[in-house]
């Protein structure tokens, strides 16, 4: 059975359709990357999977619990934790350990358990030396690691990252992507990552491409071929910004895969 399933999910904000007819199935232990340009509905999808918002049509289930079932909301959030884009807006504690403890305290765990879980996740994320530091004094990469540690502490089965790496430099970004792949491989943690960076999709088990609120392609990175003109051109512009030579022809003819492989080749 899939860990996360979306069936015919639509969502609209004040009459504007953000997502329409999304069907998605994410198996336990998969590494999934949701790609799409700004306004394609990635953040809306991430929030739907965490039961922060409910679909206006269709249904989302996480580990067999429907997000519309109010009694299951905390089980869903514990199973699939959400990390947002800007770490400064989600850090609550005055010290690193206090911030990680936030969810554990909310779960009503005994202080000694909280303490040992904190020790574990700090080790996993490489933040042990920063345990008593003020989170505001950490670097951008360390702040992001702290947000991930806060979710890992809940001992859930899935972590959803909503463009959580978009504010990081390449070095920190690679560090966190490596950590996510390691957790995915060694602990079987399901990772769902929304991104605009096509490079993130290269090592994924499943790539879902969103455009204008619809899934326009999904599958393994090498199978994702059907890309709409708008997204293909945005991929091209992203590649050009990084001085990767891509002709309009390559992008419009063969879509994302060629753009990706072209980039990978360079």
């Amino acid at each position: 059975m899939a860990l996360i399933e979306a069936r015919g999910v639509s969502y609209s904000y004040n009459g504007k359709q953000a997502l329409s007819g999304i069907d998605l199935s994410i198996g336990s232990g998969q590494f999934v990357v949701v790609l799409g340009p700004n306004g394609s509905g990635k953040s809306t999808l991430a929030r739907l999977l965490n039961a922060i918002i409910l679909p206006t049509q269709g249904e989302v289930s996480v580990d067999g619990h429907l997000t519309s079932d109010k009694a299951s909301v905390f089980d869903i959030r514990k199973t699939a934790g959400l990390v947002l884009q800007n770490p400064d807006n989600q850090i609550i504690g005055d010290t690193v350990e206090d911030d990680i403890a936030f969810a554990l305290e909310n779960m009503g765990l005994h202080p000694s358990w909280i303490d040992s879980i904190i020790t574990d996740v700090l080790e996993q994320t490489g933040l042990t030396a920063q345990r008593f530091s003020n989170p505001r004094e950490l670097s951008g990469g360390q702040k992001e690691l702290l947000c991930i540690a806060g979710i890992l502490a809940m001992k859930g089965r899935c972590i959803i990252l909503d463009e959580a790496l978009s504010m990081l430099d390449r070095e920190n970004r690679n560090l966190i992507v490596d950590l996510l792949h390691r957790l995915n491989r060694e602990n079987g943690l399901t990772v769902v990552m929304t991104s605009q960076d096509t490079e993130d999709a290269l090592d994924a088990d499943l790539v879902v491409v969103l455009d204008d609120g619809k899934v326009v392609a999904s599958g393994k990175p090498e199978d994702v071929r059907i890309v709409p003109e708008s997204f293909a051109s945005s991929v091209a512009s992203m590649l050009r910004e990084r001085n990767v030579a891509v002709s309009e022809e390559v992008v419009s003819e063969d879509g994302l895969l060629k753009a990706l492989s072209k980039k990978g080749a360079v």
Partner: protein
Amino acid sequence: MIRDVTLGRYYRQDSFVHTLDPRTKLCGVAFLIAGIFISSSVISCIFTMLCIAALVWLSRVPLRYMVKGLLPIFVFLAVVAVLNIILVPNGVFRAILISLRVVEVIFASNLLCLSTRPREISNGVETGFSWMRHLKVPVHDLATIVSIAFTFIPILAEEARRILDAQTSRGLDMRKGGLVKKTKASVSVIIPMFVSAIERAENLAVAMESRLYGCGEPTRLHPLKYSYDDAAAYVCIFTYLLVVILMKVGRL
């Protein structure tokens, strides 16, 4: 001036005041403020000031850091003093008394913030007022609000500074012109500030919900515990208030 906001900033130090239980510190500040308002003579105001000075010394927070917190309200103090001198009989005495009281209240509250982490303040409020749960008062939520407010004061001050710098680089000059021009100019800082604060609040709410806020009866990583130092501090607090009341009764 935004750079001088010290409210909500914790000053890390290993001192007697820092290690006290937050409930003791909250009670101490409440009694100090009560004492400040009971004081009606310059002598009792000076006595309170000496007590606060002793606390600052014990906290090992640099005095310049405390004084820095006064800068944003310097204009307010000056206006109050001038109005008292002009409008009130025996105005100079009243101006000195009121200014001293305001400075003392700010020092006392600043000392609490500088020596106590926001989460400790929130724990202190929650534990100290836990009896109010029986009256259906959402003590945990209120304590969380207090904690978040203290945490976000320096962050919002920093954000305001960034917006001000951005607007200054685009030609805004808050120092030039009359009151109307300055008020108009401040709109270009206040509106982005509001937008940013609302966006932050929304994201924080999502982050808190996704980390199981409201899931059930919360526990604490570091449950509060009184020590002998707290007992000694309570004796000092009650003695202070008693002395101030006696000064008031004895018209000192």
